[in-house]
């Protein structure tokens, strides 16, 4: 089976559900989520049986690649989406209130919260496979526009709308820069296919100025998506304002896909010595500034979602450092770990939010007494986010630091180390609230069966990957970041 059917299947599923929504009774919207999640689970299963060689060579293959990285990131996107759908199920009462207002007068509107992620998921899967800048632009926009709606979906809450507008305007700005950047890259090289760029750019000596100009605009646009300084500013506000499942989705899947795209896009430029000489310091400064901003900004936060936003900025800094280290398997691993631990944290947030009604850190006071198991999972995820060894997050940081040390980026290491140490502080702050502080009420905090299962899976994943990373490593095969299919490389229609 050709890999490109995967996305088609997802889109088909989404469209079907969109239409089916009309026929579902309002109480049963949960079923939509279930169908969506199971459908995605099937797609995830299909990932293991697709045959990259079966891609139609002329129609699809020039734009679409099914290299190991793409497949891995498709898997990540699928897993993340499945969990986000499950999270949405759990979060439904809050969503309903947000969409329909406190009196809950009008039924409906919730189903979109389950269907739009499917579109976004398809978009991210395409992003992972996109090897043509135009195709990349399209898939990215599919993701972004779905997210505009998702972020603003709790339309009875000003916070959600405000987040939506902020995301919309800054996202649109990034779209503009992406397009403008692509035009200049095209203008300088005459190419829009990454595989061609990967071959041509490293040796280019003329039109460098135009090429750099274009690539910087694209970099800026992608930096928006990944959350790199100084294009990170939307993240805290949007993460805080958006519904929790959407925040999780943004934090995990959208970031993961964007990181792969960023790495793919930057690779040819980093291989051109003339551009790299300028680019590496710039990326280094961005990475260092992102690390500092994310970690130091998180220090004073009291809202868990906002804290996670800064944490996600901080992780973006590490990811860029990893990209600079030029060993993308380590970055992939980092993202895999990041998916596990971040999702677990968001599950915990949504559970607490549902029963306490807030997502301040103080809402987590005494969680260890109210629900020790949940507290334990959150400890594991906080430890992993902080990079405590024998959790998945540590392997990620370890790999990134190793890459930086091997590449000799000492100033960056000097920034990353204290930044990571500061990370200990704010992640452990969560732990402190759960274990040290006295709760307002001692009622045991119930967790649904669904969330329990999901949390157990994610926690187990975090721990197992921390102990036996090979499990995930096997899924990440070492391959060139930019796939250069033999066919395109030979028949490149260079002008």
């Amino acid at each position, binding site marked *: 089976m050709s890999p490109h059917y995967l996305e088609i299947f997802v889109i088909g599923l989404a469209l079907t559900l969109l239409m089916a929504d009309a026929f579902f009774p309002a109480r049963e919207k949960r079923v939509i989520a279930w169908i969506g999640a199971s459908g995605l689970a099937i797609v995830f299963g299909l990932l293991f049986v697709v045959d990259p060689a079966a891609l139609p060579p002329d129609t699809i293959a020039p734009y679409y690649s099914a290299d190991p990285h793409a497949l891995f990131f498709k898997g990540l996107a699928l897993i993340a989406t499945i969990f986000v759908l499950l999270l949405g199920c759990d979060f439904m009462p809050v969503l309903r209130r947000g969409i329909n207002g406190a009196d809950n007068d009008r039924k409906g509107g919730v189903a979109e919260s389950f269907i739009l992620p499917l579109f976004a998921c398809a978009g991210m899967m395409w992003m992972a496979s996109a090897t043509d800048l135009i195709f990349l632009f399209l898939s990215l926009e599919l993701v972004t526009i779905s997210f505009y709606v998702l972020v603003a979906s709790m339309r009875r809450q000003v916070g959600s709308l405000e987040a939506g507008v902020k995301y919309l305007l800054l996202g649109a700005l990034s779209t503009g820069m992406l397009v403008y950047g692509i035009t200049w890259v095209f203008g300088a090289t005459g190419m829009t296919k990454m595989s061609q760029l990967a071959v041509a750019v490293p040796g280019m000596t003329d039109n460098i100025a135009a090429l750099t100009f274009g690539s910087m605009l694209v970099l800026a646009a992608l930096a928006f998506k990944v959350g790199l300084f100084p294009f990170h500013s939307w993240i805290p506000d949007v993460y805080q304002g958006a519904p929790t499942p959407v925040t999780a989705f943004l934090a995990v899947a959208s970031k993961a896909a964007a990181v792969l795209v960023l790495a793919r896009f930057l690779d040819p430029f980093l291989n051109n010595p003339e551009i790299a000489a300028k680019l590496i310091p710039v990326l280094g400064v961005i990475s260092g500034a992102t690390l500092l901003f994310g970690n130091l900004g998180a220090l004073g936060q009291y809202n868990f979602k906002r804290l996670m936003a800064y944490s996600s900025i901080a992780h973006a800094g590490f990811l860029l450092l990893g990209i600079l280290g030029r060993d993308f398997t380590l970055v992939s691993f980092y993202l895999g770990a990041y998916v596990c631990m971040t999702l677990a944290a968001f599950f915990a947030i949504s559970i607490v939010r549902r029963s306490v009604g807030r997502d301040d850190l103080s809402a987590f006071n005494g969680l260890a007494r109210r629900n020790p198991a949940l507290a334990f999972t959150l400890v594991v995820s906080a430890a992993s986010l902080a990079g405590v060894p024998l959790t998945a997050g*540590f392997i990620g940081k370890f790999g990134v630091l190793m890459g930086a040390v091997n590449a000799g980026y000492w100033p960056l290491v000097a920034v990353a*180390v*204290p930044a990571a*140490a500061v990370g200990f502080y704010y992640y452990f702050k969560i732990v402190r609230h759960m274990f040290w502080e006295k709760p307002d009420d001692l009622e045991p905090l119930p967790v649904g069966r669904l969330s329990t299962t999901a949390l157990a899976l994610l926690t187990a994943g975090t721990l197992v990957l921390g102990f036996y990373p090979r499990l995930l*490593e096997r899924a990440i095969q*070492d391959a060139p970041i930019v796939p250069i299919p033999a066919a395109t490389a030979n028949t490149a229609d260079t002008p």
Partner: protein
Amino acid sequence: MPIVLILLVFLPLAAAALIGLRAPARATSLGTAIVMVFLVAALNHYFDRESPSMQFASSLTVMENPGIALAFGIDGMSLVMLLLSVLVLFAALWMIDPLADNARLQYAGSLLIAGGAIGAFASTDLFFFFAFHELALIPTFLLIGMCGRGSNARSAAWRITLYLGLGSLILLVGLLALHHALGQPGFSITELHARAMADPIAPETQSWIALLLIIGFGSLVSLVPLHSWAAPAYAAAPTPVAMLHAGVLKKFGLYGLLRVAVPMLPEGMREWAGLLLVLLLLNIIYMGLVTIACKRLDTMFGCSSVMHMGYLFLAVAALSLTGPDNTLAYRGAILLMFAHGVSIALLFALADRIESRTGTLEIARLSGLGRAMPSLGFLFGIAAFASIGLPGLANFAGELLVFLSGFHGFRPSEGLQPLQWATILAVWGVVISAVYMLRAYRTAFMGDPDASRRHDVLTTEEKLPLAALAGALVVVGFFPNLLLQYLPF
């Protein structure tokens, strides 16, 4: 036989998990500890003293790029450390009051801390060597914060966490740099070592890697001026945590210096040995003075444990300056690590008992305990005199070897070198520690007992862990060869 070692590492972790899943805490943890004692005994029994290589070795590749393996194996040095860990773990678990508020957490946390330490000592892979040690950070943080004593337990918990977190990150960078400089694909310590022997790293590179390792390991071992976390944290920590951390986990840094830094970076370590000499003298003299000024028993023990690290650093410095044939330093350091671990654990355990009887640890408010509780006085005497370095107790043998190591290769014709001067000044620490220990002993144990307080004598159950530790001090003090026989040279 590798299974024995693997069991030893994972048993405490499994027991902690079981306790988390509502297994009976005290029975499970003590049962585990006893099984672990037998496991270590088995290791001792089957240990081949003639073989210099890693024994009971096992390896499981957990990551291919970079090559990381969950690899265990022990040589004589690790065996001694395992012995120490198991002994202190047993006593620490026994000390936990099963009726306390957070007893379950204390049992599980202690097991995790010990598991981390044992894992680190048994790992032959640099990655897991580091990782296992860090594992203990979270339970330490939680336990100090939740069950800590005194008003500033929480800030102490923060401080130890951040300090050690930063320290270990710096250490991590150092280890990564070392790995990179050796150009080895894997992280196996033995392979890295062989590589370092065959193809030494360039001296300049060695120098700054060594600096990173000294800072990293040094902050874990509380090398002045990176020591600020130690005393407050130990004063605030619940007894089992203080015992395990000061007694066992802290030794990780020294173990690391001896296992990694000194053999792989001989030039680099020599370059910084001068600095190390100055700092270790600060540890001994300066911290000794700080200890004299301490007004509470627990802070005093905390400071004194910082102070005693100076002797161990002296061994490291001597090894760095005089080269690997200074077996005295090596043996002295290992012996002293064991001895200090046991004696400081015993001191903290005794402090716990004193507090449970009198409700205070302020030295000035204690009096006449020796009359009221003779066996407590006797045990405290053993612990105190051990830490003073009295012959017949384990610490003395270690300290003597360390001091001798400072005079290894001494050439009188060239006069006293910095190493020798430092050794002589370090010997003065013996006087300083006698001053504060005897002052405390005199105030707290001598004189008339405070009639207004009830002093129940120690029950047999309470005496058991204390006696086990004290017994270890005496036995090793009389027969240090019991431990030294396992060392390869």
